[in-house]
């Protein structure tokens, strides 16, 4: 116990000491930051027009300003919120129609402040790169080189200067890496000190921010977790450490690297959902319960509905799946054609479909099979799980029915109809058992909106299901509803929920029709817990598929390494000034070469070391391995997964990987100069070579800066000269 107490004392030791701040200013860092700011912030509000994906993110910023709910399947909301923060600070009211790239911004759009945060993030990447190399124990010269390469990388500049998320993502990724390295480099005796905690926690926070901006951040997070795991494995091997303090180390890491990031990630959603409380364009993606929690929209209709479905209730039934579109169980007076186009026969009874629009024909009445009346008794008798009901179509008063007749488009399933008695020895089979899927006990009451219900046919045990197929002309292209005989487990297409609901009061059919047409208005409102909303929204974001997948500037992952592709971001409406996402060719090529050299050299060293031949000193080898693990590993985890992805890919997806690859260049250069150039002459020649190479990087940066910054406008011949690769798409106006 005493030892435990001691360890906790040490863990909290930083509280006992006075807080002392010693300021130490590294002029390198200051100058680099300044240069980064200049390169990223210079002329930030030019062009005053929508540039590329600003058209996409801008609409979300507007929706934030107006507090309207939306779902974006491209990623979690933290990035959008940061952009919106820029708009908020600039006093943006959200009134701008984000409809096309190149549209001129109106006066109310604070362009500068909207673009400020990404630009700041981009600028700060420069000193971060410097610090990372320093923490990897490389020389200040190498660190300076890395920072300058990042500074002069045209693609990173372009991407930082607009309302886009990549620079923010890269900033958080680099911050996470840097803080982990700081944490790791702290001497052993400073465990659980203030700065130890600070850097450890900052790692977790930066990771969760990176993941919160884009799911791509997950790759770096996993890389850091693996690294931390490996390092902790060495800590386990340290036998001077007591078991208790080992446990404390483990818990501290678990807290900072797993629990806090998860909590922060959830909190992003909390803020997101708190900010956005009004209903909006994406409502119908969500379940009825979710929609009902938003102000306006469905809430306006469902507010004050009775909660418990009772015999005699008038309801609309929405299919939970919502694919191919949200729809409600529907029927109308038309019957199934006697013969279908392919010659199969039908029952010729009244059609039952799923209809994607609100309609009076979507109303059904829940009836007790043992009683005749279609009104709610007083007190209402609620319907519970397992009860058997009949569903009566409100307008036609026919009963929902299914029988052993093949469905029109899915012949393996049963046809569902509203029963018409033709007196042809085909009896009505209209009893359905209500099964509440999300019940807590077997006596649960069927609740409006909240309960997800399966209707199991009593005679055939078929389940009412939306097949997803769209009926031909005779069914008005509405969606087919079938009875699924082989119901394999749970699928959302078989689950329905009550959306609109009221207790029926009219005894006569005429009155009832009037009642069905009138809007629902009654008591109670319901609220969804935050966790329920969070899980639903998270699930939708992950599973929502964007159908429109091709884009003019989309590219494949293989094109990125060699930069065989570019993206035109903006073109001046009259002159030929334009902005492209186009990298610094020399940097990209050198980064590839560096990665190649690193891999080959490492393999060579590794094999030789296995044969007990040591080419470089042990500590140099350790540095070489850890630097490569971070930089080459960072490149690999941020790049290789794209080969397995089916979504539309763009060149900018490569930028995080590229950043890591660039950091590798000075590492390899310093290693060559320190360990492979053995004579002084060789060393100075190598230095000269580096200087020459670096000037070429600068030269390329200057050459391409007109298409990076969008000014000055170039002439046709100049533009043609810039087209260094045939596959680049540089826009040249026809004269």
């Amino acid at each position, binding site marked *: 116990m005493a030892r435990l107490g001691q360890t906790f004392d040490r863990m909290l030791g930083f509280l006992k000491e006075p807080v002392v701040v010693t300021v130490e200013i590294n002029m390198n860092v200051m100058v680099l930051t300044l240069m980064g700011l200049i390169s990223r912030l210079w002329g930030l509000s030019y062009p005053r027009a929508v540039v590329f994906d600003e058209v996409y993110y801008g609409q979300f910023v507007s929706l934030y300003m107006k507090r309207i709910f939306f779902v974006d399947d491209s990623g979690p909301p933290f990035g959008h919120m940061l952009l919106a923060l820029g708009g908020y600070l600039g006093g943006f009211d959200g009134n701008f129609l984000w409809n096309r790239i190149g549209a001129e911004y109106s006066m109310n759009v604070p362009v500068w402040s909207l673009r400020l945060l990404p630009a700041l993030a981009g600028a700060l990447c420069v000193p971060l790169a410097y610090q990372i190399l320093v923490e990897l124990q490389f020389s200040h010269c190498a660190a300076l080189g890395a920072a300058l390469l990042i500074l002069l990388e045209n693609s990173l500049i372009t991407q930082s200067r607009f309302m886009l998320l990549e620079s923010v993502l890269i900033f958080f990724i680099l911050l996470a890496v840097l803080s982990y390295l700081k944490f790791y480099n702290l001497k052993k005796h400073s465990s659980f000190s203030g700065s130890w905690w600070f850097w450890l926690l900052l790692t977790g926070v930066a990771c969760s921010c990176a993941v919160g901006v884009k799911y791509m951040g997950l790759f770096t997070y996993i890389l850091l977790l693996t690294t931390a795991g490996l390092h902790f494995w060495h800590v386990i091997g340290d036998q001077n450490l007591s078991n208790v303090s080992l446990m404390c180390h483990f818990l501290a890491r678990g807290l900072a690297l797993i629990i806090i990031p998860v909590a922060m990630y959830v909190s992003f959603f909390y803020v997101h959902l708190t900010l956005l409380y009004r209903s909006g364009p994406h409502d119908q993606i969500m379940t009825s319960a979710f929609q009902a929690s938003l102000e306006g929209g469905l809430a306006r209709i469902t507010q004050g509905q009775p909660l418990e479905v009772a015999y005699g209730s008038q309801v609309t039934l929405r299919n939970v799946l919502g694919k191919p579109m949200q729809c409600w169980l529907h029927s109308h007076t038309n019957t199934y054609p006697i013969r279908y186009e392919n010659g199969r026969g039908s029952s010729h009874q009244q059609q039952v479909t799923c209809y994607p629009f609100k309609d009076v024909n979507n109303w059904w009445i829940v009836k007790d099979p043992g009683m005749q009346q279609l009104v709610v008794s007083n007190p209402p008798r609620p319907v519970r799980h397992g009860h058997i009901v009949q569903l009566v179509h409100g307008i036609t008063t026919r009963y929902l029915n299914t029988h052993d007749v093949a469905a029109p488009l899915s012949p393996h399933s049963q046809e569902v109809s509203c029963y018409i008695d033709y007196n042809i020895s085909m009896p009505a089979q209209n009893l359905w058992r209500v099964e509440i899927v999300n019940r807590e006990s077997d006596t649960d009451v069927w609740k409006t909106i909240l309960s997800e219900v399966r209707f199991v046919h009593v005679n055939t045990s078929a389940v009412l299901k*939306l097949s997803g197929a769209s009926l031909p002309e005779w069914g008005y292209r509405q969606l087919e509803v079938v009875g699924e005989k082989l119901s394999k487990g749970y699928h959302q297409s078989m689950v329905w929920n009550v959306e609109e609901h009221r207790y029926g009061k009219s005894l006569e059919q005429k009155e009832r029709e009037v009642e069905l047409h009138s809007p629902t208005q009654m008591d109670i409102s319901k609220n969804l817990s935050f966790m329920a909303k969070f899980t639903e929204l998270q699930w939708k974001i992950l599973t929502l598929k964007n159908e429109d997948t091709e884009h003019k500037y989309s590219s494949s992952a293989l094109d990125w390494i060699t930069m065989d592709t570019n993206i035109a971001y903006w073109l001046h409406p009259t002159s030929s000034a334009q902005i492209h996402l186009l990298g610094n060719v020399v940097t990209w090529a050198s980064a590839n070469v560096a990665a190649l050299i690193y891999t080959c050299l490492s393999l060579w060293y590794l094999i030789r070391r296995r044969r*007990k031949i040591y080419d470089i000193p042990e500590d140099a080898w350790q540095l070489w391995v850890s630097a490569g693990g971070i930089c080459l590993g960072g490149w690999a985890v941020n790049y290789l997964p794209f080969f397995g992805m089916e979504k539309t890919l763009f060149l900018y997806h490569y930028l995080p990987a590229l950043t890591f690859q660039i950091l590798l260049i000075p590492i390899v250069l310093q290693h060559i100069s320190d360990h492979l150039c053995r004579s002084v002459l060789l060393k100075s020649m190598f230095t000269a070579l580096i200087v020459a190479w670096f000037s070429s990087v600068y030269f390329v940066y200057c050459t391409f800066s007109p298409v990076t910054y969008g000014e000055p406008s170039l002439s046709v011949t100049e533009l043609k000269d810039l087209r260094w690769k045939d596959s680049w798409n540089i826009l040249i106006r026809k004269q």
Partner: protein
Amino acid sequence: MRAPRPAHPPRTPSPGLRRARPGAAGHTALRMPAAGRGRAEPGLPRQRESRAPRRLPAHPAAPPAAARPAALALVILLSFASRFHRLAEPPHVCWDETHFGKMGSYYINRTFFFDVHPPLGKMLIGLAGYLSGYDGTFPFQKPGDRYEQHNYVGMRGFCAFLGSCLVPLAYLTVLELSKSLPAALLTAFILIFDTGCITLSQYILLDPILMFFLMGAVLSMVKCNSCADRPFSASWWFWMSLTGVNLAGAMGVKFVGLFVVLLVGLNTMYDLWDLLGNLSLSLVMFGKHLLARVLCLILLPLALYTAMFAVHFTVLNKSGPGDGFFSSAFQSQLIGNNLHNISVPEHVAYGSVVTMKNLRMAGGYLHSHWHLYPEGIGARQQQVTAYLHKDLNNLWIIKKHDSDTADPSDPSIPVEFVRHGDIIRLEHKETSRNLHSHQHEAPLTRKHFQVTAYGINGTGDSNDFWRIEVVGRQAGKLIRVLRGQVRLTHVATGCMLGSSGKILPKWGWEQLEVTCTPYLKETPNSLWNFEDHINPKLPNISLDVLKPSFAEILLESHMVMIQGNTALKPKDNEVTSKPWHWPINYQGLRFSGVNETDYRVYLLGNPVIWWLNLVTIGLYLLITVSAAVALKRGVQLTSELKDLSRVVLRGGGQIMLGWLLHYLPFFMMGRVLYFHHYFPAMLFSSMLTGITWDTLLKFCAMFLSPSATARKVYGAGFLALVLLIIYSFYLFHPLSYGIIGPMASDPSSPMAGLRWMDSWEF
């Protein structure tokens, strides 16, 4: 096959009976904690680091040597009995027998077909059928068809034979890895009494064949590892080349065999790395090791794999249902194909009726049908697709762009040949619409233009004009059938007709997309050749189509298979099996019968065994982590514990890796998945269960140090597990051997009360 009691609960250890190997002496008893400690340590420190652990046959409770053959015999007996019991039932086609039995028949009849799996499994089925007197005449049309007089038992017997061999293979593998007879027996019992493994082995399916080769590869790999102390000995060579042979076999049955190749590959790399670090081994010796592995594990399997395809193409020399998937050149090799010894008019003329085949591998014929593009996808005109099967809708008539060259049977009009550079119109024969393109985006490849069929009775507009060009030809030259590689350029927009190879959704009947590409790159996607050619006015000339080389055929058939595999996508709203369902035995597969009156067979693992396996995986991870941490923390372990942890970490690790490699990749697969895909992983999981429980029981026994109790605990635990397995098999055996009577929900059913999960369908 009723009460197989565990044959050999651990007996009194008898140290003297074990083969005396260096370092093994005196290290066999449970209660001799100090006996082996420090062994081998004084001598060769370097050796110990890399190789010595394998040589230690350390095992605390080794039974007498005579027990092993007896145990093996028992395992084999039980295994065969359980697999061959009621083999001929049900006497109708079950589940995928409809595919694989049919393909066996194709081999017997020597007709060419196409399947997404490599040929070995089906060839073996065909061979088994042939040897057992099946004549290949049964059509295998759909599940449920009765076999009547046809001899199907031979093929089922062959699969059941391989399925039975699985058990001894797994038994020997575990025995080799853990050196513990109880562990091996436990594994064997699990596999013998698993209803899933029994069911899967009893029918004409590829899985028993695949799993046989897979287990064969694992066993020979493990055996080869044990021979590592005498490299280049006869047994070393034998086991290594046997590994190679089995790898080829596994790959040759299904591409899933790739995972076991990966497992062996990783093992070999680890092995080589080990050898490289052994400084007593000269580099020359290391080179020899490397070469031997390249030879046995890469070259030998490749050669066998290629040979398999050679046999496949030699046997199947008659035209059959798979022709359309392949290029014209390939088809000309098949007897009975319309391209075999073909005799057609050599040059294409106006008025000719032709089919056009895309030169992309698995490219398909230019096709159109009465259906329109759906609303919102380009213009609502008639679809044009690429279709892999031969069909009347693949026929097109070549017409002049300006005049309607009337019907070709009219003898008064002279024949006019199409020349390179001509502008033509292609009229779809069945629907009389013209091949048409315009500046609407194509349905899937949005950067390309849509291609439609347009017009009525051959009258369209100027967007129907195409310039026909032959690769490598000058203007004015005639265009040859089959050999001429043709490019069709749309006159109005300048784009080229091509097929993107992407599969259209349901509205396009899952045929391939045809587009007009504005990027004028010369790829096979945008090249076509004329295949069929009908023109009564021209004389037919016999043509020798370019004979494709074997390498070309091999490459082509693989491209077609890959295309076929990616095309197996789940349909919208279809409930499919998910990988996470599998280890928890969430849902089985109906092999036969649905209703109460049917003879029902349901592929479902014995839930007790499967859940035991699942729990064991968690348990194993727990044990591994604690053992690894304990070792890392430098905890002083007794030699027994060290041995146990070695078995768990090294032997169990290999098996665990096998399980991961055979399971995790399914999470990333886009194709349709089925429950039976898990069975290879289940084999590994069962072996892991054997090893883990044996270790765990030994560990528990070790704590109760008085030897009598220890042995009792160990024996009782082992016995309890075996009895549990056998009892659960007694409960669930109707799943495999057939249920007749009411469904499980009815109390009078044989399965009453056993439907433990709602998702089980019996």
